[in-house]
């Protein structure tokens, strides 16, 4: 309400964040946090055994990771900031206020990490040729890089855990209470071995490309990296269980929908079975890589690679969804409105405190009832406009009008073809948070609930996508503009 409303009506705002953030997680977990210790260990082992084949393989894997992490990895990291600031500036603003020094520290650590990976990669060949103390320095660079990669994740995971359960911060508002939230250590304990296991699977796939088919070294490398993956697998399971046990009970209730959307909520058991079979398949293939690497074709390693990427990406979806209706647990709802502000908003209305209005386009005005007198048409349009503003301020962070997770789709599923009158939709919206706990309560007053209903009734007849402020601009509500939604807006402009 203090910011223009950015909106993507086709894929939805959530997809913008998800596509960038999940890609970032896959890269930073699999190619940085998990991979750097593995590469450093391979280099160390090669130096210890005086075997240049390990050194060469480690360098080739590092170079591939260096290319991806410093381009797509870095861009998606910044992309998360951009997308979150656009979609939910209120939540990121709150988080920055709480975690300013944590993020500042993380920025320093990240800059150090970037410098280290540059130095580690670019000095490899020359310092290896020099040997002796220079090679030892290079090894230390690798382990330092591994450490700093992990530290960036360690800082960010504190913030992610806070978003789900702020713990004692809700009462004492202290920085350390926020950092040491109930989910921090369990989640960090889960992500650390997960990153290592991901890196192992990715490295096994890369080994098949960087070594020749009948080279015995390929078998040694696959065996060693397979062992690395297998060594971390039990920790992923145990820490995963610890993490799951720490999730607030109310949020676990969202698991069915989070796993596979509302339409497939009853697939929960089936989905979990698919996940277990996938994990089993990964273990069997890794087992083959250790015991019978000569039997492992390149195509076989595509299975655990795709599987681990899918499992990790889907875990991120689940983690984000089960947190609903909150974006910051017990503090701020996913619509960007604070829990403590609800009393005020439900009294005054959301529009009374909204700086911007989101003007209807000509396409959005289509679908009004035929045969209306000009005054009546204008009055209806004014109510539709206000209803749209209510929608944009309270619903659009998660819902589109016509696209993914559209309100039209949900209303059609619930009410079918009958007219979506304000009484019908209002009766549902007022109580939806009881039936669907992942939905926040409606934050507006009674008049705004009706205005929203008028807008939704109009949407039933209108198929135009809803533009965001980025393409359609905003109207700044000056002193002359109406601020309070009331029933006197039947004819003419509202007071």
């Amino acid at each position, binding site marked *: 309400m203090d910011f223009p409303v950015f909106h993507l009506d086709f894929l939805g705002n959530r997809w913008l964040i998800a596509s960038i953030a999940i890609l970032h997680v896959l890269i930073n977990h699999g190619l940085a946090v998990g991979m750097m210790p593995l590469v450093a260990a391979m280099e160390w082992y090669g130096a210890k055994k005086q075997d240049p084949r390990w050194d060469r393989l480690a360098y080739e894997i590092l170079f591939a990771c260096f290319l991806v992490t410093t381009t797509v990895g870095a861009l998606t990291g910044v992309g998360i900031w951009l997308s979150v600031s656009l979609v939910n500036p209120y939540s990121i603003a709150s988080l920055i206020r709480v975690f300013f020094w944590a993020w500042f520290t993380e920025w320093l650590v990240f800059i150090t990490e970037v410098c280290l990976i540059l130095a580690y990669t670019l000095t490899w060949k020359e310092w290896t040729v020099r040997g002796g103390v220079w090679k030892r320095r290079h090894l230390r660079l690798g382990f330092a890089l591994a450490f700093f990669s992990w530290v960036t994740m360690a800082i960010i995971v504190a913030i992610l855990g806070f978003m789900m359960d702020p713990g004692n911060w809700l009462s004492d508002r202290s920085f350390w209470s926020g950092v040491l939230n109930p989910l921090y250590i369990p989640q960090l304990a889960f992500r650390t071995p997960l990153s290592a296991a991901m890196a192992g699977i990715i490295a096994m796939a890369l080994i098949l490309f960087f070594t020749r088919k009948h080279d015995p070294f390929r078998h040694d490398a696959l*065996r060693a990296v397979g*062992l690395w993956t297998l060594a971390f697998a039990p920790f992923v399971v145990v820490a995963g269980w610890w993490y799951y046990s720490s999730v607030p009970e109310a949020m676990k209730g969202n698991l069915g929908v989070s796993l596979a959307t509302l339409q497939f909520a009853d697939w929960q058991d089936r989905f979990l079975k698919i996940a277990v079979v996938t994990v089993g398949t990964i273990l*069997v293939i890794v087992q083959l890589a250790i*015991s019978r690497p000569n039997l492992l074709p390149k195509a076989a390693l595509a299975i655990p690679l795709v599987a681990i990427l899918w499992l990790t990406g889907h875990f991120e979806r689940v983690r984000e969804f089960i947190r609903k209706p909150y974006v910051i647990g017990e503090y701020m709802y996913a619509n960007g409105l604070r829990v403590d502000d609800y009393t005020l908003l439900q009294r005054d209305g959301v529009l009374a405190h909204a700086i911007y209005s989101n003007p209807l386009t000509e396409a959005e005005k289509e679908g009004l009832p035929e045969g209306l007198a000009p005054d009546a048409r204008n009055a209806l349009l004014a109510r539709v406009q206000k209803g749209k503003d209510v929608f944009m301020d309270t619903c659009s962070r998660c819902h589109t009008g016509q696209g993914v997770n559209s309100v039209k789709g949900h209303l059609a599923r619930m009410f079918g073809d009958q007219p979506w009158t304000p009484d019908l939709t209002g009766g549902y919206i007022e109580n939806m948070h009881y039936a669907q706990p992942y939905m926040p309560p409606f934050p507006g007053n009674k008049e705004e609930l009706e205005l929203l209903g008028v807008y939704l009734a109009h949407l039933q007849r209108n198929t135009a996508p809803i533009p965001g402020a980025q393409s359609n601009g905003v109207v700044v509500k000056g002193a002359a503009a109406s601020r309070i939604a009331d029933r006197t807006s039947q004819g003419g402009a509202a007071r």
Partner: protein
Amino acid sequence: MMNRIARWLGARPHRATVTNALMLSALLGMTNSVVLYALMGSIALAGSAANFGYWAAGRSLDANPYRVALTWLPGLLATLLAAAALFLVTQYPAGTLEYGLGAILFAAELAMLVLVGADLARDRAAGEAGTAD
């Protein structure tokens, strides 16, 4: 044909055992008897795991941590997955997807466990014969 099979089986000592393990698993899968599957499957698993454990323990005595992990982890994983598979086939009725997956996994992991034990036995024999490890 039979001579060729016999020669193939005889070429490596563990092939006969692995083939037996696979045939036992297939037979158990076809019996449609939960009790028999659980009993015979457990005996076969325990026997193979004990064989693996014996050879792995002997090899671990003077090995570095990497070698110890390389020795133990494959067999432990095979034992764990075979036990999980045995659980699946005893919990779900024959003909279901879970039963089928469990039966396949049990056969594969039992065979893998036999293979791992055989590898360790062969390495020990090679070591005792003075062949470099």
